[in-house]
């Protein structure tokens, strides 16, 4: 069933797989991360970079890389004196320009709004954290459980919570200029997807409904402007 068609051509076999909607539970090798939730998993060149998360009262600041080709985990070891983000959960991450951009989350005692990059398009031993200094005074308040979606060079952050209050504001972080742009309040969600220029937020938000909303935007000379939400 896995392989429906097999064509022999010289020394190559070509497979056309029609398997769909199939679950599998693969065996993986290497240094498997501990039980973890509320982490981020970012795809970088067929490798999944897992950062942060936690279990129970424990919060992580570790980075693991899963090679999806060889199905092997590897923990990334950083120099002891290298700067790195604090432990956190419920943060978000996007991959842009060879770096994983991490925003926000919470460390168990407070919510965060710092931005970090992890150089990821390199061998594991050369991965490096760097704190991003945001230009200007505008910054989203500290938060976790938000969503972040990369649309071109913009990291769109929607909603979230600081543990007391649920937010519904939208922030665009220009990763090229490292500055935030605030947008008017429109909605929030826990999960999101982006396709080309359109961003779809799928609830449920903490205080709203579960209605899918689509957020379109256009760019003019790097300036983000919201054309509309429609819901």
């Amino acid at each position, binding site marked *: 069933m896995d392989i429906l068609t097999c064509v022999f051509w010289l020394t190559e076999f070509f497979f056309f797989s*029609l*398997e769909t909607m*199939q679950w599998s539970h693969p065996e*993986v090798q290497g240094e498997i991360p501990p039980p973890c939730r509320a982490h981020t*998993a970012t*795809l970088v060149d067929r490798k999944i970079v897992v950062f942060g998360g936690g279990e129970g009262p424990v919060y992580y600041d570790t980075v693991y890389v899963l090679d999806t080709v060889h199905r092997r985990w590897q923990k990334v070891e950083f120099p002891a004196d290298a700067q790195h983000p604090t432990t956190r959960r419920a943060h978000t991450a996007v991959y842009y320009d060879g770096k994983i951009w991490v925003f926000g989350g919470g460390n168990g005692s407070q919510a965060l709004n710092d931005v970090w990059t992890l150089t990821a398009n390199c061998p594991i031993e050369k991965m490096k954290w760097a704190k991003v200094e945001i230009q200007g005074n505008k910054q989203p308040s500290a938060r976790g459980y938000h969503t972040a979606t990369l649309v071109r060079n913009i990291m769109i952050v929607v909603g979230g919570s600081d543990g007391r209050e649920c937010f519904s504001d939208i922030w665009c972080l220009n990763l090229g200029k490292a500055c935030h742009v605030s947008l008017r309040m429109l909605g929030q969600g826990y999960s999101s997807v982006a396709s080309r220029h359109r961003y779809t937020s799928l609830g449920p938000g903490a205080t709203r409904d*579960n209605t899918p909303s689509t957020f*379109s935007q256009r760019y003019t000379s790097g300036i983000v402007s919201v*054309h509309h939400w429609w819901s």
Partner: protein
Amino acid sequence: MPLGRSDSPAETLGDYSRTEGGPLTPKISNGSITSAPYFSPRLQHQNIRVATGSNNSLRSLSMAHGDRIDQVPHGHTPPTSSTGTVSGGTTGQTVTRPSGPRHIASATLRPEKQPRSASDTTPVRGEGDSGGGMGNGDAEREQVREGKTNNALTHRTSRTGLSARASRSGRATPHTLGHSSTHPNGTSPHLPSSSARVRLLPYLPHSKDSEVAPTVQMYWSKAPVWGTMPNHGMRAHSVTLVDSVAWIFGGCDERGCWKDLWLFNTGASASWTSLHVSSG
């Protein structure tokens, strides 16, 4: 999962029932809607079928359902309202929708006020619903989508000898089909005398110049999965899509956190792969 908000009296007009398989799937109690969100590829354009011997048309359809097309609040329009395929019950009328995005020009035809919930967009029963000369009660629900709908409807209704022009008269918006006049005979024998609002275009409340999303892709439906399935619930996990395979790691349930890895092949991009073998 709510199907729509009910913060308006107009919401009471809806007749959606909650379904297990699809939160936004319309379900008609008499079974006139079967698998609403799904469309066969052959239904890429309007397909309006009028039962043999039926004298109904767009006009009679509109008359049958009355005019409940105006003065509805802004808000959400669930995709079910615009993509459902509804068989016309005993009348044999079937109105289906074109798929894919529509041209921006359609946005200019937006009505002033719009519904907030799924129920708003469902043809519903209203005044005089209990018969009223239609004879079919609430057995019929019609959902019409825009696109080439108007032209198609006009064409088809011309063939039936009745004008679709009337359906766009009065307060009816281009998004809706509805008519407040009566059948020449005073009745529409194959349609209920229920009030209904039939929307031709999905709402884009804030858009004037944007393409309409392919709402056919915006339905929830339960996937027919198979294979070695996860044996525990999970939340706060991560899902990373590698090609068409979702790599799912971690998460937790009421028992604690997990460190296992699951793969789910979406099959979204069935493609050729090659395996190099060495000779000898």
